[in-house]
């Protein structure tokens, strides 16, 4: 894991620069195992920055959330850079945004953190449901060491890791200006076991599984807002003319919303799993995204957010793309 002093020093150096507006990183959350996004405008604010296995948020979402109010007369646009702390999956989202020309590379300073996996907050709160005081979590080999009320507890990594991290193929940020610590090489391979099992089931079973999950959806759109790649100026569900998806919360509309959300991320999703983490209703959203990720890997040999030079999947083609089901 990352040396926090090194991280803070790096951030301090960055925010002291004239051409950097602020740096986005993590700070201690308000209770238990929470870690919260933090914005450092000054070197003093950089003192708050941390990096621990609890830093699950994908901060690249804030790049596209930045509000730019209309300029007043005589005012000039602030073109200073934004600094960002990224893990492997977060960096892929950044690459994808750059690839789509959502942002300019020169508007970013990226601090890469070679990632050895992060803890799923849902899993850890199940183990310690009453933890209020912040907990220090360190990584030691294959274990996490938690210091709770002065006592150390050792928990195997596998029990707490996000599922996505167990199969992560890009733990070191594919794009970075500064890399903290040594590169982490991955020998893991995404095997899509869960996806393949579900694929094999009968249509009826699959529909039962998904309709039950979509019935829970309350359409809070946390999945959309937390996603770094959902940055349309007007989302299709907010559109009124034509209104493709009705506001009624029922099975039909919920299914369509969830399908379209997943589809709009086809060939763009970097697999950070933020949608599922944010979902208050525990809908297995990554299972939709991963399915598409698997298909495009098989059909078009395409992996999203890895190569800055590549064109977006659905904006290009190969003459010999699959024609299997075309009449």
């Amino acid at each position, binding site marked *: 894991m990352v040396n926090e002093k090194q991280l803070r020093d790096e951030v301090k150096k960055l925010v002291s620069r004239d051409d950097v507006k602020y740096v986005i990183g993590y700070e201690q959350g*308000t209770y238990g195992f929470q870690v919260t996004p933090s914005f450092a405008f000054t070197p003093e604010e950089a003192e708050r920055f941390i990096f621990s296995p609890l830093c699950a*948020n994908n901060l690249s*979402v804030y790049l596209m959330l930045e509000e730019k109010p209309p300029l007043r007369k005589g005012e000039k646009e602030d073109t200073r850079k934004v600094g960002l702390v990224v893990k492997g999956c977060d960096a892929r989202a950044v690459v994808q945004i750059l690839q789509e020309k959502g942002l300019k590379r020169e508007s970013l300073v990226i601090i890469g953190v070679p990632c050895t996996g992060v803890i799923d907050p849902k899993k850890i709160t199940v183990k310690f449901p009453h*933890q209020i005081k912040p907990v220090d979590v360190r990584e030691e080999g294959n274990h996490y060491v938690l210091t709770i009320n002065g006592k150390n507890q050792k928990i195997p990594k596998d029990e707490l890791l996000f599922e996505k991290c167990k199969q992560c193929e890009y733990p070191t940020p594919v794009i970075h200006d500064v890399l903290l610590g040594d590169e982490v090489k991955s020998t893991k391979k995404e095997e899509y076991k869960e996806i393949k099992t579900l694929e094999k089931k009968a249509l009826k079973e699959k529909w039962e599984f998904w309709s039950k999950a979509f019935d829970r959806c309350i359409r809070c*759109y946390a999945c959309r*807002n937390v996603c770094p790649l959902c940055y349309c100026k007007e989302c299709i569900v907010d559109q009124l003319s034509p209104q493709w998806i009705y*506001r009624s919360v029922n099975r039909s509309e919920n299914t369509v919303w969830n399908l379209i959300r997943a589809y709009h991320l086809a060939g763009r999703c970097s697999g950070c799993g933020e949608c599922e*983490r944010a979902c208050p209703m*525990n809908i297995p959203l990554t299972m939709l995204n991963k399915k598409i990720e698997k298909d495009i890997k098989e059909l078009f040999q395409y992996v999203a957010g890895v190569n800055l030079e590549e064109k977006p999947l659905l904006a290009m083609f190969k003459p010999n793309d699959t024609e299997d089901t075309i009449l």
Partner: protein
Amino acid sequence: MKVSTMEKYILLKNKLPEWINMITPTYTIFAPVKEEDLVFFKPITKPSEMTLAYSNAIVPPKAQMFHQTETMFTFTQGKNIRVNPASLPDEKIVVFGIRPCDAKSLSIIDPVFTNDFEDPYYLTKRKNAILVGLSCNQPTVNCFCTSLNGSPASPEHLDILLTDIGDKYYVELNSEKGKQLVEKTKKLFTPATDADSKKKKDVEKKAVDAITRQMKINNVDAFVKKLDTIFDAPYWKTIAMKCLGCGACTYLCPTCHCFDIQDETTLDKGARIRVWDSCMRPEYTLHASGHNPRPERMNRVRNRVYHKYNYYPKNHQMIACVGCGRCIDNCPVNIDIIDVITKAGEVKP
């Protein structure tokens, strides 16, 4: 409606299923049901479907009175235009196992649906509902009802409150409605003794002590006034920086009551429906002209806090927050209302 001297009874735990079976034919019973590690209030047909070992339901029981999607009326289009009002349900319901904080939230939103205009959709369901509460013996990490003059075992705002005191429930009847429900099934209940009352008090005290997170504001009324002076503080911008603008906090809030009205149509007929809306979305305040009075996230985050802690107390003399902690639990970026309020108390005007 409230009974001055509260009647207190004892219901043995093993008699609870029998009681529920006895009232099932007359009432639709909504009770906590576990699904995918989450608890929902759902209609049950037999007592075994419900789970009573739960902290709180993910979606507040306001959803039983104020449906997320509600058809207001239907219409036909074309030459023979007709408007048919939606039929209002007259089924009697029992919300079983509702927590005292959620019951309070219903009392809080009542004025919204009664003051200027009597809202038939909400009120019919509200009037037909009997709230049978269950004291919260094990508050969760983010419970803070005691900061807002609530208690995890308060029968106020409920018709009946059950408190788990070991092998039996201590039953407090707090309204005529509650009395009537018990009256018909009287044989299951025995009068409570002083020892039982003491036990309940002990259980309550233990639960209150278990609530460790508190808003650190000395005087709630003074805080409400203080908000008037810090409206333009840069503080709001700093907390709004990390807000993503999703609706998880508002949809899951037991006192949030905003809705949107839309027409949904096919070629020849349609319906006017009302659905929950969230003030955290830019579209919420967007005018037809394109002007948006709350253009930035800062305006929207501040509005959520002000609506609950300033505007609502001014209009209805109550804070529109019950301290259930749902918005804290479900915020993807850890915007923590306890922290937000505590720090707002420290901001210099």
